[in-house]
């Protein structure tokens, strides 16, 4: 048996074995998930949750620094949080597994800071900086960080963003992955055959607990912030008990933030429960339609809103009496703790002294005399004014680096998200711009040509000499750019300028006098310039009455002759 046939037989045996061991393909499990819930409802809820936190922070900042309209940052915080939620979801998709998380987050943070800088300039700093202000930022780059509440805005925005990112990450992990859906939708024999590919179980219970803990902790912090927001800054110094500082009503913004935070949090809790059940149903082989998820979201929203509406009509009792009792209890506990600590300290000191054995001899322990060191007046030498060139160099390098970093970050951020630089598209758009410029140039050239031809036709018609005078007057008064004129017009311009200058010097061109007659008169007055006068007159006659095409060199020759004549005409006498 030849080698070839043996190989063929082996292949056949292997193929037969594979066919024999191939699992029977069954009907895939009808398990559907709702994309609207994932792509719209969840990110919006997470963004709302994070924005409510930023509202609470801004409300406190507003109390401390009431001169700025801090609440104008709320829309920015919402969009940044939304971006964070979407990015967290995107970073967990299989397409982005190769993305460097740290680098991407750093790029995202830098871009957020840039956006916050621009936003705070517009809404907190009275608009885009003027050129003088920009010049100041160029020379002193770090001053850009300290104006228009940038640091505060950046802090609040980054808090909202990080909260959205952490929650977005939790919910993305809670959701069933594409691998789980792909595996568990297979029929049982296929799952058994592909047992090695079974997805690793995610600890969804722990993830949900993590969300609940985060939500609870931040919620408590928000309540404390709400309590702080009821305090007037002026009264802070007069309050002895920190527990008695909350005496004013909550502001509407803070109320809104609290309501949004807790309602959105409850809704997200329901959503987390849905995701956890989803994973269980998928693993158990339960068929599910996408309508169930929509109905789930709808039902939980209706329940929450109904309960919230009913709760709005329930009486809110005063906390004052119980608060006093609790305060008393806390004071008693604190007092007892102090006594116990003092007693322990006393016993400890006694023991030490007994061990050393010189209780009577030892001097009573005196507290050390705290004397403040005398503050010496340090005379700071006036700093030498730095060299302006060096200062400019430093600031230029700084801004160049900053702009390069921002551009590189933007490019990296967009490239990783799939927005690549399309050279063909840019070249196409560049060609469009070039075409547009060419068209513009062609229009201008046409306009000039038409003007020239009109001028020529006007010159061709017999005109009285006064017309030429008028023309020379018009040349003087009008604004002409000689470079834009055709050689023929340039020659005419130089000749008419000569007529104008000669007229000023007393040699006026008479009515009905031809250029050659006028040239004769000029040559009698300025005999040393006879050649130039003849040349420029001949050139003018050619330009005026001949259809021969004129070159730029002709115009240049006339220009040089005109300059010589002008110099001579300026000479007195």
């Amino acid at each position, binding site marked *: 048996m030849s080698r070839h046939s043996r190989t063929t037989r082996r292949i056949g045996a292997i193929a037969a074995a594979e066919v024999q061991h191939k699992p029977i393909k069954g009907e895939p499990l009808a398990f559907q998930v709702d994309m609207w819930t994932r792509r719209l409802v969840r990110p919006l809820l997470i963004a709302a949750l994070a924005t409510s936190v930023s509202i609470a922070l801004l409300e406190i900042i507003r109390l401390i620094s009431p001169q700025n309209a801090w609440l104008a940052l709320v829309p920015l915080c919402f969009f940044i949080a939304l971006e964070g939620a979407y990015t967290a979801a995107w970073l967990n998709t299989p397409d982005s597994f190769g993305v460097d998380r740290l680098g991407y987050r750093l790029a995202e943070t830098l871009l957020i800071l840039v956006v916050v800088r621009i936003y705070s300039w517009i809404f907190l700093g009275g608009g885009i900086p003027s050129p003088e202000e920009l010049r100041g930022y160029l020379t002193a780059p770090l001053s850009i960080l300290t104006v228009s509440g940038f640091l505060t805005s950046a802090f609040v925005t980054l808090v909202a963003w990080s909260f959205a990112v952490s929650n977005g990450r939790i919910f993305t992990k809670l959701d069933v992955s594409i691998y789980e859906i792909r595996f568990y939708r297979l029929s049982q024999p296929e799952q058994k055959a592909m047992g090695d590919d079974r997805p690793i179980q995610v600890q969804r219970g722990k993830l949900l607990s993590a969300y609940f803990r985060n939500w*609870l902790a931040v919620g408590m912090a928000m309540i404390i912030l709400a309590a702080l927001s009821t305090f007037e800054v002026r009264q802070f110094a007069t309050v002895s008990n920190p527990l008695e500082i909350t005496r004013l009503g909550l502001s509407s913004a803070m109320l809104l933030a609290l309501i949004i935070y*807790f309602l959105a949090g409850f809704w997200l*809790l329901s959503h987390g*429960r849905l995701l956890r059940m989803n994973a269980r149903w998928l693993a158990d082989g339960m*068929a599910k339609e996408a309508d*169930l998820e929509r*109905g789930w979201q709808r039902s939980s929203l209706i329940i929450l809103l109904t309960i919230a509406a009913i709760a709005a009509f329930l009486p809110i*009792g005063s906390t*004052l009496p119980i608060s006093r009792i609790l305060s008393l209890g806390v004071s008693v506990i604190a007092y007892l703790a102090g006594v116990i600590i003092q007693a322990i300290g006393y016993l400890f000191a006694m023991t030490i002294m007994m061990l050393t054995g010189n209780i009577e001899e030892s001097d009573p322990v005196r507290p050390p005399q705290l004397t403040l060191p005398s503050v010496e007046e340090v005379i700071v030498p006036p700093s030498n004014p730095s060299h302006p060139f060096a200062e400019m160099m430093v600031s230029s390098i700084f801004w160049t680096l900053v702009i390069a970093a921002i551009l590189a970050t933007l490019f990296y951020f967009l490239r990783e998200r799939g927005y690549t630089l399309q050279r063909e598209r840019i070249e196409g758009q560049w060609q469009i711009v070039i075409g547009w410029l060419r068209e513009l140039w062609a229009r201008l050239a046409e306009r000039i040509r038409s003007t020239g031809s009109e001028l020529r036709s006007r010159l061709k018609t017999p005109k009285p000499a006064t017309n030429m005078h008028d023309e020379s007057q018009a040349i003087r008064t009008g604004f002409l750019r000689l470079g834009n004129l055709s050689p023929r017009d340039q020659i005419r311009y130089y000749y008419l300028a000569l007529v104008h200058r000669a007229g000023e010097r007393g040699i006026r061109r008479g009515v009905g006098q031809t250029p050659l007659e006028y040239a004769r008169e000029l040559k009698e007055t300025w005999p040393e310039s006879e050649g130039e006068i003849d040349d420029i007159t001949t050139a003018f006659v050619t330009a005026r009455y001949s259809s021969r095409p004129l070159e730029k060199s002709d115009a240049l020759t006339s220009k040089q002759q005109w300059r010589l004549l002008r110099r001579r005409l300026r000479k007195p006498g």
Partner: protein
Amino acid sequence: MSRYSWLLLLLLAIAFLLRVDFIFYILYIAVGVLAWSRWRTPRALRNLTAAREYRRRAFLGESIEVKLTLTNQSRLAIPWLQIQEHVPPELRVEESVRFVRSIQGRQTSDHIYHVRGLQRGYYSLGPLRLMNGDLFGLAKPHFSYLPPDFLTVYPRIIPLTRLGLPSRLPFGTIGSHQRLFEDPARPAGVREFRSGDSLRQMNWKASAHTQKHLVRTFEPAISLEALILLDLYSGSYERRNRQEATEWAIVVAASLATHLINQRQRVGLSSNGVDPLRLHADEQLFDEVTGRLSFDPDVGEDSLRRYMASAIAPRNGQPHLMKILEQLARLDTKETMPFAEWAPAACANLNWGVTVLAITAQGDTTTSQALHRLARNGFNPILIAVEPTANFGLVKERARRLGFQAYNVSNPHALSQWRQTQVGPAVGAPLR
């Protein structure tokens, strides 16, 4: 204490310590969500009714539609309901029987799935397990069950057309070659008078017309009232292919019964196998692998006799056939009572001349003697051996000497003579 209770306590503590009255509002919402979840979840299932509709009997390979109907009698919706129907593995399911669904208030939701019986037996469909929970994970899930219903899958029936079994009973509806059983209601023609012919058979008009003595002739007919004695005593069958042989015996019994009932004959069934349905409801166990009702209690041989299938007396009609097939679907093999001991007792109440179709493994001496005794008692025993036997000629010869006929039907091919397409009138032809 659950984490949610911690939330409530923390809210209360902060409300009192910081004296922020608004926290009460948040507290009301938190308590409201908790109360709703714990109040609503158990009540949702109380207002839910479930029903299962299907045909209770199926032929082998037939697809049966099962319709689950869930009705929410409450005005409030059930956001999610996990529904899990247990279907035995032997009933191949064509659609999913595990799914999650939401049911609106006052809504009826139907789910239809199909099962296909691939093996005779008595199966349970269900129980239907319903699980419901809240939307926030604050209440424990609640369960409800719809009790199981049962489905009988009949054994395989091979259609027969030419069953030519001998009979001792005249005046039936099956045509026969045995002249002894001429039926006066079936005139066949005339022939010349022979010595010994009864004068009552003379056809006087024809004789006058032809000037010859002519007598009337009649078609013979028999009545084949039969009792199928199905031997399912496990000791009768060889161990190595006991399962196949007993299943085949049941197929032969079902095919014979169906054919005879279709011929409007009276047929009965008696078997020494066990019927698991005779067990007490608590003892009934469905096999985990196949899902069939099986007979597994550990009882002695004497006790086993209590669970032997009850005899079905010979009757005709389709309802009677269904009764026979249902019992055949359930029967199981056990060491109850050997054929030779059981057969005389099983035929004790039969009429004279009834054909006894004894389906057993092989026609050994003991079995033959038992059938001989039945023949002597006036019955018409016929031995049908279902295990392949190399020297069945000896058995056949022994049976002939003892006064009954014997057939070896060890595979579907052996039934081919009974399955030939009928061309003319149904004339019984004895088998080999």
